[in-house]
């Protein structure tokens, strides 16, 4: 914690940096919220721990000048995508990379405390300590990780100007696409039923669109009235069309930050859809989004030697 405050205090002194984007502690238990430090005093409020789950890159364009930003590997992958798609100017960024060993799922933690009033919480190493009105309890962080974390092979941001700590290599990870492969094995009718049950519950609140770092269109296809591609009312047919088109729009672009999963109030496993697209793109084009800024995204490049065996 000392580290990030010191870095931030040094950076904010610079004339060219308008603000520092990071996190502060939120009011609800296990909550952190995005925080913009503009003065050295602001910097003291900055925190960085495994409950800092929000993807901060969406805030960059709210500033006209140069900003410094703390990025976890997930945020950095989104940055790579946004830089590739000309949404952010690299010169207007100072990137401070933060290594990540997995982020906590606040929902899981709230379930674990079984409705007791939380006075405060603190994170120390791989443990989180919860202080109740009376008494306290300690949990192992690794039991409460977000679904995306255990299989993640990016523990160090793929892009940064300075990095806190040393680069982390990964080994012996569980398989990222295990769930997708499981779903693929289902017979068509069961697959249909599985997704119908989920899509039926969709409220069309568009929280998934709002939170996605790569959904930055000024006008989403769902807003288009002429022609109206899909029905605006909430029904299975148009909900399904909405989610499938969104998955296609993210194909070869989704960096698997899992924010859609986290934001969905109806717990629709949207990440599974996006992972399926990731699998296809990787199989066909040997490309994983967000890894390397210099490799052009395959779905918006034209190459004569692109495989064509899928056209029959």
């Amino acid at each position, binding site marked *: 914690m000392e580290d990030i405050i010191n870095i931030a205090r040094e950076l904010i002194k610079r004339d060219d940096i308008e603000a520092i984007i990071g996190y502060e502690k939120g009011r609800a238990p296990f909550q952190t919220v995005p925080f913009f430090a503009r003065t050295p005093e602001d910097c003291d409020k900055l925190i960085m721990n495994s409950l800092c789950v929000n993807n901060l890159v969406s805030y960059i364009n709210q500033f006209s000048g140069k900003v410094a930003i703390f990025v976890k590997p997930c945020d950095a992958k989104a940055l790579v995508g946004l830089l590739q798609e000309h*949404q952010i100017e690299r010169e207007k960024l100072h990137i401070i990379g933060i290594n990540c060993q997995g982020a906590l799922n606040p929902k899981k933690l709230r379930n674990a405390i079984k409705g007791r009033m939380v006075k405060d919480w603190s994170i120390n190493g791989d443990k989180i300590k919860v202080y109740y009105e009376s008494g306290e309890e300690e949990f192992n962080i690794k039991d409460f990780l977000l679904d995306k974390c255990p299989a993640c092979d990016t523990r160090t941001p793929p892009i940064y100007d300075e990095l806190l700590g040393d680069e982390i290599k990964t080994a012996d990870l569980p398989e990222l696409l295990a769930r997708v492969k499981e779903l693929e094995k289902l017979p*068509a*009718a069961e697959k249909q039923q599985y997704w119908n049950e989920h899509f039926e519950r969709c409220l069309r609140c568009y929280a998934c669109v709002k939170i996605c770092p790569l959904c930055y269109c000024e006008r*989403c*296809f769902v807003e288009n009235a002429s*022609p109206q591609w899909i029905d605006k009312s909430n029904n299975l047919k148009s909900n399904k069309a909405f989610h499938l088109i969104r998955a296609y*729009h993210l194909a070869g672009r989704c960096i698997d930050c899992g924010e859609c999963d986290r934001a969905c109030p109806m717990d629709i496993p949207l990440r599974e859809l996006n992972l399926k697209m990731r699998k296809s793109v990787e199989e066909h084009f040997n490309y994983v989004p967000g890894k390397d800024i210099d490799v052009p995204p395959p779905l*918006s490049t034209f190459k004569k030697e692109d495989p064509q065996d899928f056209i029959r």
Partner: protein
Amino acid sequence: MANIGVFVCWCGSNIAQTVDVVAVAKAASEFKDVVYSVDYKYMCSSPGQNMMIDAIKQHNLDGVVIASCSPRMHESTFRSAAVLAGFNPYMVEMANLREHCSWVHDNREEATKKAIELVRMIVAKVARNAPLNKIYVPVTKRALVIGGGIAGIQAALDIANGGVEVIMVEKEPSIGGHMSQLDETFPTLDCSQCILTPRMVEVATHKNITLYAYSEVDSVEGFVGNFKVKIKRKAKCVIEELCTGCGLCTQKCPVGKKGEVMNEFEVGMAPRPAIYIPFPQAVPNIPVIDRENCTYFKTGKCGVCAKVCVAKAIDFNQKDEIVEEEVGAIIVATGYDLYPKDSYGEYGYGKFKDVISGLEFERMVSASGPTKGKVLRPSNGKPPKNVVFIKCVGSRDEKHGISYCSKICCMYTAKHAMLLHHKCPGAKAYIFYMDIRATGKGYEEFVKRAMEEEGAVYIRGRVSRIYKRKDHLVVVGADTLTGKPVEVEADLVVLATAIIAKDGADKLAQILKISYDTHNFYNEAHPKLRPVETNTAGIFLAGCCQAPKDIPDSVSQGSAAASKALALFSKKELEREPLISRVNEEFCVGCLACQPVCPYNAIEEKEIRDRKGNLIKKVAHINEGLCMGCGACAVTCRSGCIILEGFTNNQIFEQINTFENLISKFEPTPEETVAKK
């Protein structure tokens, strides 16, 4: 609300036989927005077109659907007719009842149903059409000719004689191409150099032609009428303005004396110095230094050429230079290469000295060639007695070589047999062939003359093996006409190697953004009706870069390409179809996903600024002159900010919707289909 007229064409019996055109016209009359509907035997005929023009006026139409053949066939016919009626031509659309319906079905009832639906969809589309206006772009009246072979020379001279400036770019130190290497040409046996050299000189001296020899096209930007070309002029290390072409440097250069550098022009049969002119008649007659083999460049010592040059024209410090030229049209005449001779191990090329290629034979019989026009065996320098010619080496061989016919080998092999007869009296020519293809004017007679008057022995069959016996080469093959094996004891074997695309043809195509086939030959826009145009407006083809061809064909194509270019230059402004993409700048987020998918480089980034000059945002911008309306950008744009005029999302969506509303009545939904399974 729209007033749409529907005109159903019988196309004689082409459509009427399978589709009940009367029923289609009747059904169409009941469609929403349709105020007039009629059927007619030939809509494309003059009375048919007049019917449309009259109806537009009488019924105050604002949309027209012609239900007839493919728009590729007659869209322009009806749109031009609409202009005569003072009607916006882009309010005319075609429903394809012929290629998409009557020609592919035989059940009259079902075909009629389908025809009605095709018309219904197009009516729905037309109701959402908007009037469009042609786009006008200025023309730069200058042409670029890439390649200085006979095709390029012809094109350049024709254009220049038409009063238009020409820039000619040639890769080699001299223009002339393959034709300058030939001795005599079929079917008249006139001397190749004698007919070519005056043309080469004309190029060099023509006031309208700028020649960049020893240069290559580096990049091409822009569009028809407005190309910007960067040309790399390779360093000759000789100052052109000073060089008098005396040739003293080439005589004194110490390199090449021992045969360590071979002359490409002589197909490696004679050495050349490091500073050289490829052949005596070269145009321009200015030597170049081959920096790879020059002792000065290798060791920093020598400089003999500089010492002997009276004109002080040698400049070792010369660097490659990029020049920029603006042109309105480009003619590609980059020529061909020959199939690598060593790919046929059974013929022993490279193993046996006396196995040579047709082009080597050509240099041998040339009076200015390495043997001064004498046919001699490379192994011992003696004249041969028996010479075997093998045709189709690489050509028409799908397994090992290439599938196509190289077109010229039948003729030049017959010519070689004649030349052998003339220059090496007493020598006998044996020709192994698959077929004899002699389809040009005077060609058949020429081959007949080789057989009957000049004593060439034609053996139908392939050669399976060549091996050495003492001083001779034994050619083993089969005579498929008698069904017997044949053995010829030869002193010299000449391989008629296939014509293949020029090395690097694909790279140049990518620079020019023209398409090429699997053999890397450039694609013409239409194999019959547009043989010298490419699909990229303003770029034309001539000669062997498009497909193998002989000198007469290359020259005709050169002239044809020139006439196309001159036609383009005859206009003040170019008229372009307005069916191009446009960006909705209000919603464009400037992700530029559209940019890399554009095959025509028509998309650039545009900055939108307020009145004070502050940047508001960056968006994609489409260059009207470059966009060909393929729509690749429109489908890539996630937020639907790019529309293709004439095929807007609204039009297509309505077209599909009209169809979908119909099928949903009797087709199961996808859910039902899955449930059934």
